[in-house]
């Protein structure tokens, strides 16, 4: 590959989904083939470029692209190991979700608009992952809000419009808080690039209150998307969106943007030392621990499958925040690897929920009785995903929870392990009955609205294949966690290379 092309690699990765997305907007509804081609072209291009970048970063290369923006704060796209973790996650899952969405939305109206915004959403996520300073991060954080909103309201029903309004109210307020925080930090310290170990240590001497205020503003702004209690209210309601959107929102784009931002702020803006010196980790730790238990507890009470998954997301994403707030290297590994694992597991669960709804019209949990015989493949994927969420080996979820537990022990916070145990129990309480119903429940009435989507498989192949793909990922990531290719090894590399722990 040409050297000059490598300089533009971060930009090209963002553009590889942005340009097809913009083109898709201009297409007519009937141009299905062209639209599908553009979608797949974008996905393929992005994966190839991401692969190139991954190879380079593994070798220790760095990629850097700069455009003039605000005075003292350029737009910077750069690739380090941490951004690559998120880029790979979103690009791979985008592939699965695109195929799923093509199958899911077959024959439904307004597909050009949908896929256009879908591509924009992934572009914003990738841009956010590659952002090299806080101002760039803010830019993509807001663009993500704008790109996801049309997807949430896509169906245009009164419920989805209400959900869209609520989503906007939360996320725009969050963006505003983030903007206040970013501008305050810009005034105090400028907007330098994200630095391993943070760049605020020199300011500690000159007063800590403004730094604490900035931290609170940033975390509150990011907490909205990461669905930290009490800022989680938008998430369960946003479930009215079509299944691929929920999958993308919950697994990759929105909640992960918040969690990823928290990782950046704690490790690359403030730095562990400053966070410790300012006593900032405690509130975050308690908030995350509470959110974990609260989300699980609320999930228990939900009778709607997608709603239960939504509350489960609230709980599971806070594991990442918790791992970050523990401020130890092992906990950091756990948090990072959970960012990937939770994404893959949650997207599988949402794919399955979508399959049930599309094929048999199942939305409520009690309607799932005996569905295992009707749709064995989907049910298998759902079961493995649920077991992974609980943290049962060999699924991927076990690995991340193991490291989080080790991390808690390492920094001598045994009560956190108690939180993990309790939440694991609650997870089991809300997932195992569902699994039991699927395989052993007795079907007591006809399926709500069965449709014959395929003559060979239990459902349309475009719905089935993505869930099988992510199911494979869950098992591979769990079984081969110790190999060099696994997210676990990559997370260890990030912590080793970029998170400066002195000990």
């Amino acid at each position: 590959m040409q050297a000059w092309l490598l300089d533009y690699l971060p930009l090209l990765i963002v553009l590889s989904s942005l340009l097809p997305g913009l083109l898709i907007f201009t297409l007519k509804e009937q141009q299905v083939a062209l639209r599908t081609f553009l979608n797949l072209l974008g996905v393929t291009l992005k994966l190839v470029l991401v692969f190139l970048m991954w190879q380079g970063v593994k070798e220790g290369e760095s990629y850097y692209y700069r455009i003039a923006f605000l005075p003292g704060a350029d737009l910077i796209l750069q690739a380090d190991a941490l951004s690559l973790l998120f880029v790979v996650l979103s690009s791979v899952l985008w592939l699965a979700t695109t195929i799923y969405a093509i199958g899911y939305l077959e024959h439904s109206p307004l597909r050009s608009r949908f896929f256009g915004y879908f591509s924009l959403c992934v572009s914003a996520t990738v841009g956010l992952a590659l952002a090299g300073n806080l101002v760039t991060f803010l830019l993509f954080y807001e663009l993500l809000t704008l790109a996801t909103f049309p997807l949430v309201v896509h169906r245009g029903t009164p419920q989805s419009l209400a959900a869209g309004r609520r989503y906007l109210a939360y996320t725009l307020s969050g963006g505003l808080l983030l903007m206040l925080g970013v501008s305050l930090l810009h005034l105090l310290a400028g907007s330098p690039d994200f630095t391993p170990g943070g760049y605020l240590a020199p300011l500690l001497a000159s007063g800590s209150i403004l730094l604490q205020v900035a931290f609170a503003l940033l975390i509150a702004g990011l907490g909205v998307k990461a669905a930290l209690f009490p800022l989680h209210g938008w998430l369960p309601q946003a479930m009215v969106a079509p299944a691929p959107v929920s999958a993308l929102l919950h697994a990759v784009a929105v909640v992960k943007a918040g969690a990823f931002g928290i990782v950046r702020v704690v490790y690359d803006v403030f730095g562990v030392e400053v966070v410790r010196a300012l006593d900032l980790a405690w509130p975050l730790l308690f908030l995350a621990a509470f959110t974990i238990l609260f989300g699980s507890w609320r999930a228990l009470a939900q009778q709607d499958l997608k709603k239960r998954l939504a509350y489960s997301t609230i709980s599971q994403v806070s594991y990442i925040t918790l791992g970050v707030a523990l401020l130890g290297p092992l906990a950091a590994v756990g948090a990072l690897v959970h960012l990937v694992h939770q994404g893959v597991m949650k997207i599988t669960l949402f794919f399955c929920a979508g399959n049930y709804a599309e094929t048999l019209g199942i939305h409520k949990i009690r309607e799932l009785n005996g569905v295992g015989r009707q749709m064995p493949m989907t049910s298998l994927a759902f079961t493995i995903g649920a077991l992974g969420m609980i943290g049962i080996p060999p699924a991927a979820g076990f690995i991340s929870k193991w490291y989080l537990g080790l991390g808690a022990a390492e920094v001598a916070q045994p009560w956190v392990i108690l939180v993990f145990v309790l939440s694991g129990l609650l997870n089991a309480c809300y997932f195992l009955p569902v699994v039991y119903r699927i395989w052993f429940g007795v079907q007591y009435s006809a399926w709500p609205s069965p449709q014959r989507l395929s003559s060979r498989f239990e459902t349309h192949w475009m719905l089935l294949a993505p869930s099988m793909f992510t199911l494979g990922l869950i098992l591979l990531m769990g079984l081969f966690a110790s190999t060099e290719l696994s997210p676990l090894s990559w997370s260890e590399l990030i912590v080793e290379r970029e998170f400066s722990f002195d000990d």
Partner: protein
Amino acid sequence: MFPALLLVTLPLSAALLMLLWPRFARSLHVTVALLSVPLAGYFLQQILLHGEQQWLLGGWSPLLAIRWQADSLSALLLLLSALLHLLVSGYALAVQARDRLPAAFWPLSSLLLASLQALWLARDLFNWYVCLELLGMVAVALVTLSGDKALKPALNYLLFSLFASLCYLLGVALLYAGYGALDLPLLAGQLEANRLNAMALLLITLGLMLKAACWPLHIWLPAAHAAAPAAVSALLSALVVKGPLFILYLVWTELAPQAFWLPASYLFALAALGALLFGGIAALRTPYGKSLVAYSTVAQLGYATLALAFVLRFNLPEFVAALWLFVLAHALAKAASFLAMGELQQTLGSKQVSALKGASQTMPLAMFAFAVAGGSLIGLPPSGGFLAKWALLLGLWQSQQYFWLLVLAVATLLAAAYVFRVVVLAFDRAEPTAPDFAPQRLPQYLALLPALAVWAMALFSMPLLTLLKQEL
């Protein structure tokens, strides 16, 4: 000086010629609009090369002659006016058959351009009065173009405008009585902080705030801007209200004695607070689409007024930059949103906001233009509105104005609420349209143009700040 003179005399003489030969009105108008843009661009380049320039018209002494002066800010405003005038002319040409724009539109809008360009160039209190008076008259006449229903708001506008001019003229007369000069650079630094000058400045400020629709003196604006044809509303909201603001800024920063700055800053801050909150709330509640955009103008002017208040109170470059960045960003965004909203209303055949249900499907382009412009009004990155807000935020953090940070946050949320009030509705499922439903595409693209321009603005923050001679 030649290009500057042409920038004013070209539209002026064209307007007169149009009255003589109404048949050529359109072509004359378009020619002038097309010529003005490169001329203004060339002029800006000259200013950048040779620095600030000034001329005394007629070559008399400063006491008698009219002084024109142009720094890079004036040149930028000249260019902006020429560009938006060209854009609106294009829009008017594209829709004139459908909207039945009266022939008077062409000479009037040329006159509007002439008086605005003269206003940006003048540095003389009486010359400004003439410009303001002409601007007001032409604006009122333009509002009446939409027919009988616009007469009442136009009359209202006329009365307020006349009253404002009177106040301004009284203030100017008081100053003239005291100092025997009207020339701004001659008067600069001369004024003592006495009662008479306080009275004069208060009258001038009152008149200008009325004309600039600063809260609570804005009451004429929403009805007038909403009643006018879309092309006119765009010009009025984007440019005309900025003229008095420009004078207000110069009068206070160059003329007024520093002893008055603090009370004036409280006055402006209060007006800004009211504008930001009540303007936003009114935009949120009004049932009509164009009133929503008009109230948004009232609210957005609050940002500029706030920046002016802090310019007087703290000597920070951030506030001066914020003031003019808001003016630029708002001009572009508001032109886009008025054109888009006008297009939506004309095509969908209703003034109600509720008629926009499903507009993202029936008229995606116009809706997109509105949403994009709205993004700048909210201040989302990377728009011009964001750039301005960023400058204001930095200034407020630096001067530790925590209360105003809170106000800014609330105002931003209000703006988000009224913009997305429309956008959410547009994502509703559309009613089936009539088979002959065929929206015009060209006017929609023209509405999109300034909206895209305002989003590109933040990427050119450095050249813009260089033009404004401010550093963040």
